[in-house]
C-alpha cells in the first residue's frame, strides 16, 4: 500500500539541504545583480537604490556575441557527440559480443572518471606547436594560430566528455527498442537502411533529445575547456562571469550575466523537455 505521508516526508532531507544552499545563494545573486557598480570597488554598492542598469548593459551587441558563441559551439559539440555516440551505442547494443560490449562500456565510463583538466591538457599538447598533431590545422588550410583552430580545440575538448556521456545515455534508449520490430520491418519489405531510419532511429528520437539535452547542458555551462584551449579567441558566458567576479571584481555585472544565462538555459531545456513529452509520449511504450 502507498503511504503518501511517508513518501513526501522522505523529500525533506534533500529539501533542507537544497533550499538554503541553492535557492539562498541564488537569491543573494539576484540581489547583487540589482546593485549599482562603482568602478574600483569590490562588490555592488549596497547603499544606493537598486537598479536594472547591469542588465541594460548586457543588451549590447558585444555581449550578444558571447551568448551566441556559447550556444553555437555548444550546439556543434552536442550534434557531433550525437552523430558519433549514436552509432557507437547502436554497435554496443546490437552488434558487439558480450565481451566487446563490456570493454566498450567500461572504457566509456572510464573516460568520465578521468579529470577534464587532464584530458584538456592532453588535447592542448597533442595539437600544440610541439605535439604530434601540430600540422593538423594546416591540413584544414588554416593557420595554427587562427581563431578557428581555437574553436576546433574547444569543440574537441567538449566532445571528450559529451561523446561518452551521450553514448552511455543512448545505450539505454536503443536497448529499449524491441529487435523484433526491426525484424518485422524487414519482413514487410523495408531494406536495412529504411528499417534503421523508420524504426530504430525514429523510435530513438526521444532518447536522442534527452541525451542531447544532457550533453548540451554540460557544454554551455563549461568553464575549463574554453579557458584552457580557447586561447582568448573563444570565451563562453561562464568565462565572462568568472572574469567579472575574479579579475575585474564587478560582482553586479557578473551576477546579472549569471541570472540571464540561467534564465535562457532553463528556457531552452524546458522547451525541449516539453517537446519530448508532448510529441513522443507514446514512443518506447
Amino acid at each position: 500500500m502507498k503511504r503518501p505521508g511517508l513518501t513526501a516526508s522522505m523529500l525533506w532531507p534533500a529539501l533542507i539541504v537544497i533550499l538554503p544552499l541553492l535557492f539562498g545563494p541564488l537569491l543573494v545573486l539576484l540581489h547583487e545583480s540589482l546593485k549599482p557598480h562603482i568602478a574600483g570597488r569590490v562588490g555592488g554598492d549596497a547603499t544606493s537604490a537598486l537598479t536594472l542598469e547591469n542588465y541594460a548593459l548586457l543588451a549590447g551587441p558585444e555581449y550578444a556575441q558571447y551568448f551566441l558563441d556559447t550556444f553555437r559551439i555548444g550546439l556543434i559539440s552536442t550534434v557531433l557527440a550525437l552523430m558519433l555516440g549514436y552509432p557507437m551505442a547502436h554497435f554496443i547494443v546490437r552488434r558487439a559480443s558480450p565481451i566487446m560490449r563490456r570493454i566498450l562500456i567500461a572504457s566509456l565510463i572510464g573516460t568520465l572518471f578521468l579529470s577534464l583538466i587532464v584530458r584538456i591538457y592532453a588535447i592542448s599538447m597533442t595539437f600544440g606547436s610541439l605535439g604530434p598533431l601540430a600540422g593538423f590545422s594546416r591540413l584544414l588550410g588554416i593557420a595554427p594560430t587562427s581563431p578557428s583552430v581555437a574553436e576546433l580545440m574547444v569543440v574537441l575538448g567538449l566532445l571528450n566528455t559529451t561523446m561518452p556521456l551521450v553514448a552511455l545515455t543512448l545505450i539505454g534508449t536503443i536497448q529499449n527498442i524491441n529487435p523484433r520490430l526491426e525484424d518485422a520491418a524487414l519482413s514487410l519489405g523495408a531494406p536495412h537502411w529504411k528499417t534503421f531510419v523508420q524504426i530504430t532511429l525514429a523510435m530513438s528520437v526521444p532518447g536522442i533529445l534527452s541525451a542531447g539535452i544532457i550533453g548540451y547542458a554540460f557544454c554551455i555551462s563549461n568553464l575549463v575547456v574554453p579557458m584552457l584551449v580557447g586561447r582568448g579567441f573563444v570565451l563562453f558566458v561562464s568565462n565572462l562571469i568568472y572574469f567579472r567576479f575574479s579579475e575585474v571584481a564587478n560582482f553586479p555585472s557578473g551576477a546579472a550575466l549569471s541570472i540571464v544565462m540561467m534564465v535562457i538555459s532553463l528556457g531552452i531545456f524546458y522547451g525541449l523537455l516539453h517537446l519530448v513529452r508532448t510529441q513522443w509520449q507514446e514512443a518506447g511504450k
Partner: protein
Amino acid sequence: MAVLDLQHIRKSFGSFTAVDDVTFEVNKGEIVALLGPSGCGKTTTLRMIAGFERPDSGRIFIGGADMELRPPYERNVGLVFQDYALFPHMTVAENIAFGMKNRGTPKNEIAPRTLEVLQQVQLPGVENRRPHALSGGQQQRVALARALVTRPDIMLLDEPLSNLDAKLRLQLRREIRTILASFECTSIIVTHDQEEAMGLADRIVLMNRGRIEQIDTPARLYQSPKTLFAADFIGHANWIHGTLSKAAGDAGIVATPVGDVRVTMRQGSPEQGPVTLCIRPERLAITDGTVEPATRMQAIAESVDIVGADVRLWSRLKDGTLVQSLDKNIGRAMPQPGSEVMLGFGPDDCVVLPASDAA
C-alpha cells in the same frame, strides 16, 4: 503445388545443432504447424524461412524460387510475432500501410486496402489508434492484418496465441483459422502447444532436438504416433513395456509383466522384439463385466481427479506401473481409492512402438 519446400536444412550455433536435416513441403492454402518443445529448432526453422538466419546447408524454395541469396525484405513472407511487434510510434493504419509502401502498392490503393483488411480481421474503426491503446487480442488482429495485407506467398506465425489468456486463446484460434482460410493463405504456425497445433493446422510437423519426428495430420499423429516421443508429446499416454511375438495374420502377442496383451500389427510397427505399448487414457476403460475386452488388467485404484468434462482415474498395476484412464464425467460411480478395479482394452486400442530409453 508446394509453396514452400525445405530440403535437408541444417543450422548450428557454435557446437549446438539447432536444426538437423529438416525436410518438408507445404502445399498451397495449407496450414502447417511446427510443433515441439522449446529448443527443438522450430523457431530457428521459422527464422530461416523468413530469412533472418541462413542455413548452414540445405535449400529453401518459396514459390519455386531458391531463397539462398534473398534477404528477408526480398522474400514475400508475412510474419506475425509472438509479441506482435507492432510499431509503437505509428498508428494502426500506418502499421498496416508500412508493408504496402515498401512493396510498391499504388498510393491510392493503400487507404482503401487498409480499411478493407481491418474489416476482414473484424476490427473496423481502430485505424487512427496507437497499438498500445488496443487490447492483446486486438493487437494480435492488427498484426495479422499488417502481414496479410501485402498478400504474402506464405504466412509465418510464431507462437501466435501464447500471450493471451486461455479463453481468448480458444476464441482467437478459431478466428485465426477463419481469417487465414478466407485469404487462402498458406501458413506455418510455430507452437509448443499441442492443442493449438491440433486446432489450427491441417498437418503437424513434430520436431524434437532439431529433427523431425513425424509429419502427419493432427488425428493421425494422435492415433498412430510413430515414435515414443510423438506418443508422449501429443496428449497423455500409458506405457507398458514388453516383448512382441508374431501370431497369426496381423495379430501379435506382447508378453508383459502384467500378462499377455493381444495387439493388432500395423504397417511400419515393429515385427518382434522389445516394444513399448502406448494406450491413451480414454481407451483404457474400467470393465464392469458386461463387455469382455481382449486384455484385462487387475489394478488398485489410487485417486480420482475430476477435470471438468472428464474424470481421470489413477490406478496402480500389479507390477507397480501407475496408469490413468479417462472417462466422461456423466455421474457414473467411480471406484473408491484402495479398491480393486479391472481395466481393459482391445487390440486396436494400443499402439506398438519400438522400445527405447527415451520414455
